[in-house]
């Protein structure tokens, strides 16, 4: 009783996918056992002259003890047409191709047609790509008139803004810190520094203090009236006592809230945002399919967002005499988060990934070893509660096996 093995099927595949006549002849001569040569001829006749005759394919396969390899034989048939269509596309031909054209083998003709369309698609895509590239080159090496016009407009706006600043400075005299009253949202020490020189501190006696207080009061009231009438880029914060904060918008990075409060809030809220997905654990103990489906939980922790939040608060100027312990705490947290970047932990069921969320993630198990594919790159992973660096797989055999599992399980 004949019984074809996987090895025989591989020999058959190699024969049908051989590129040249010499290679085919050599493979056929070296094929063992002898009965396989007859099988090859029967298959070839079927592929060329009776492409859609599945019952005959099954019958031939049965006679050779290859019933369990029917799917593999059908795949070989498709690959045979595809291979010959590829040869034809390159402007070459052989006996098999000529025979297929002679008998108008429709499956082969469809394959030839699709190959040509595929080639054309690449050419058309390339043309579009070149056009876009030329536009980019022009941008990098040329300046168009709209850009020059826009540049002049911006220069003039900047010049006018500076002029307005000078006008205001001339009208108001030398400016000072606006000491903020003890309103609920501000601490006295954390004055928002403006880009104006500080008023020197002076000591007054009581009489002088009273006179100065009334003068200052008059100046304040008239300044408020003048500022209210001006159109400027400054914002006036309202309070019930009309002694609001004047925040200079020249430096728009200066935050409105007090640094310490913000820092306290951020440090207290130190839970990392994460996204959880459940995916299949694809595996194959042999070259065939595996029926058992296992799931793996993937948890993405976006540390970059958290680091950005912390870094933003560190750009806030604390001011002289401020408490730097929060700064140190924030810096420590940033350092600690950065040390997690591009690492993972894995307990056999859940993988925690300290990378930005992506849809392109798959997990594999091959001979008791675990692998993860992220954005087309494959890494081997081990069970570890300690954050571990990804180990990229470079072994071609492993990569090909994983590719094969991926393809079979997803198609």
């Amino acid at each position, binding site marked *: 009783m004949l019984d074809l093995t996987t090895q025989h099927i591989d020999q058959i595949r*190699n024969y049908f*996918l051989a*590129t040249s006549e010499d290679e085919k002849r050599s493979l056929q001569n070296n094929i063992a056992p002898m009965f396989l040569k007859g099988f090859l001829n029967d298959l070839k006749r079927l592929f060329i002259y009776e492409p859609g005759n599945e019952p005959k394919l099954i019958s031939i396969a049965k006679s050779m003890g290859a019933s369990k390899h029917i799917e593999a034989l059908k795949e070989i048939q*498709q*690959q045979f047409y*595809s*291979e010959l269509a*590829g040869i034809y*596309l*390159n402007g070459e031909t052989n006996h098999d191709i000529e025979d297929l054209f002679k008998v108008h083998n429709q499956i082969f003709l469809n394959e030839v047609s*699709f*190959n040509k*369309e*595929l*080639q*054309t*698609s*690449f*050419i*058309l*895509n*390339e*043309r579009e790509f*070149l*056009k876009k*590239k*030329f536009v980019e*080159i*022009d941008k990098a*090496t040329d300046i168009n008139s709209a850009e020059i016009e826009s540049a002049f407009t911006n220069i003039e706006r900047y010049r006018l803004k500076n002029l307005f600043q000078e006008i205001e400075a001339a009208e108001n005299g030398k400016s000072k810190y606006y000491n903020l009253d003890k309103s609920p949202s501000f601490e006295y020490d954390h004055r928002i520094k403006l880009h104006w020189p500080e008023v020197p501190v002076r000591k007054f006696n009581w009489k002088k203090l009273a006179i100065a207080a009334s003068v200052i009061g008059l100046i304040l009231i008239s300044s408020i009236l003048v500022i209210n009438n001006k159109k400027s880029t400054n914002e006036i914060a309202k309070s019930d006592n009309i002694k609001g904060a004047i925040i200079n918008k020249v430096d728009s990075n200066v935050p409105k809230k007090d640094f310490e409060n913000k820092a306290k809030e951020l440090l207290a809220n130190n839970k990392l945002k994460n996204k959880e997905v459940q995916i299949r654990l694809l595996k194959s103990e042999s070259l065939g399919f595996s029926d058992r489906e296992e799931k793996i939980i993937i948890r993405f922790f976006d540390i970059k967002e958290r680091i950005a939040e912390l870094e933003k608060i560190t750009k806030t100027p604390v001011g002289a005499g401020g408490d730097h312990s929060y700064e140190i705490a924030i810096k420590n947290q940033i350092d600690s988060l950065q040390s997690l970047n591009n690492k993972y932990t894995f307990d056999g069921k859940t993988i925690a990934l300290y990378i930005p969320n992506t849809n*392109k993630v798959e997990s594999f198990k091959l001979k008791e070893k675990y692998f993860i594919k992220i954005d*087309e790159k494959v890494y081997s992973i081990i069970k570890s509660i300690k954050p571990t660096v990804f180990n990229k797989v470079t072994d*071609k*055999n492993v990569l*090909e096996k994983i*590719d094969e599992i991926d*393809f079979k399980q997803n*198609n």
Partner: protein
Amino acid sequence: MSRIVEMYSNDDSIIEGIKRFDDEAVTRLYNRHKSYCLWFMNSKYDDQNTIEDIYQDAVIVFIENVRTKNLKLVNTSIQTYLNSICYNQIKVRFNNKRKPVLVGDNLDTLNDYNEDINEWLNDYSDIKTERMKIIQEELIKMKEKGPQCFELLRKFFFERKTMESIAEQMNYTNSANAKAQKWRCQDRLKNQVFNRLKQC
């Protein structure tokens, strides 16, 4: 930029770079010949957008000729070749009503290269538009979702590399494995395309 200028300092090196699908060679080609071609066309045709368009199409035609027809320039230069294509295109746009007068060019050589841009770039107009559009779109999706597959198919169908060369460049153990993967990628693309065609 000076490194590119040094690498691609003459026509032969640019042509070799284009054959290798080196983007730097394309950039150098485009920049090196643009100002003269535009100046040359400007004297006949004052629509700046149109002449830039003509120049870009002329460069594409040149690149495709080099890659697919193994173009060799004999006793002439890339500049002359491009000028010639642009000159012909301007003649077409003027409907041959008047012959452009050229200064500073060897008029004899300009007629040697009779590429008609429109004819060249419309060579795929007979292929059904909707189907082609879907194949192109699915290829672009594949480029994002499966760049390895895209690259493999591109090398075979567009760059016309052999499977041996592809296997070496893409780190497959041998050409048979590369072939198997190519077939899988092609099959995947076909499924995507035909699924969409069914929905149309």
